[in-house]
């Protein structure tokens, strides 16, 4: 049960928190929409993989599973991607550029100062642009926020991954804040 009383106790994860506080919901949803579905040279599938990976490293079940399901919807890969992300994508074709950006995201997850010049140099060698490096850092940072919001208030989340299939499709194909 959540740490506080919510207007609608049936809504899972961040959805219940957004519904409880529409004033802050608007910029939080606009940020997710821009970061994950806005114009970018990274595909939405790649960006959702970064979001889901950071959420997994932060042990946020709701955010990891829902964003991995959104990545699966973009990439039409099936829900096996949820466990693949946990394992570090051993059986998924991932570009060297995305691997380098995921490493930067992991550094950010542990703390901003962990990102080294060498991490940046390696991502550039794999073709990452300044905007792509920027976006990878901001996606990782933003999920350090969303994950803490969801877990800091002990929100409820469905356990079985099948429960996230439809949610992932909606996040991928309808978007954030457009229910």
């Amino acid at each position, binding site marked *: 049960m959540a740490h506080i009383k919510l207007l609608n106790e049936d809504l899972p994860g961040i959805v219940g928190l957004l519904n409880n506080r529409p004033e802050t919901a*608007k910029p939080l949803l606009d940020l997710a929409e821009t970061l994950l579905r806005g114009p970018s040279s990274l595909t939405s599938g790649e960006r959702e993989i970064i979001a889901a990976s950071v959420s997994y490293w932060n042990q946020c079940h709701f955010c990891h599973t829902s964003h991995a399901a959104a990545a699966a919807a973009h990439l039409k890969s099936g829900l096996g991607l949820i466990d693949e992300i946990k394992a570090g994508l051993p059986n998924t074709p991932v570009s060297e550029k995305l691997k380098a950006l995921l490493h930067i995201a992991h550094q950010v997850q542990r703390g*901003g100062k962990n990102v080294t010049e060498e991490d940046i140099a390696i991502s550039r060698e794999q073709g990452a642009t300044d905007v792509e490096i920027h*976006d990878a850092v*901001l996606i990782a940072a933003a999920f350090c926020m969303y994950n803490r919001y969801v877990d*800091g*208030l002990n929100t409820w989340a469905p356990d079985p991954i099948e429960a996230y299939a439809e949610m992932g499709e909606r996040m991928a194909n309808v978007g954030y804040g457009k229910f």
Partner: protein
Amino acid sequence: MPHINLPFEFPGIRSLFMFRPETATPLNALVQTLLHNPHPSLTAGERELIATYVSGLNNCKYCCNIHGAIAQHQLGNNAQIVKQVLANPDTAPISQKMKSLLKIAAKVQLGGKNVTNQDVVNAGEEGATDIEIQDTVLIAAAFCMFNRYVDGLATWQPDDAELYDKMGEQRAREGYLTAPFKVNRETEDLSTL
């Protein structure tokens, strides 16, 4: 030196906002809503103290200094409260309710799962409402984002206390949505855009 090619005349997050206006819009709207817009019960000064405290825990020089300066100006130009909260909230001249909310913020900084039901019950007993607890968690979480964003791209973070004071005074008065000062990197003088 920043990890990417950022505009030279703007410090900290302002250089990132100039670099990527698409993400600046929702980020700035979030901080304006969390810290500056009217709140049902927490003052702007109280909310800025939470932001400053979390930025201190994350060792983010720019965010800690600028929000410390904004807090000071929101609290009747009282620099002492800010210093004492950063040093030790338990002995700072703030309410018991604020102390209990800062305890929750510190747990969120370490990771969301660290917040216990007892932390929340304690805050409730000191008079914190559910909305105050929800917003404290979100302010703490948001600064775990802003701090990582500012440090993760190695933005320019000046040392001059007077510069933070001027920028903080502007934000306390105007909120977050007006144009930022340009900073001369040689002299650390400010000019308007």
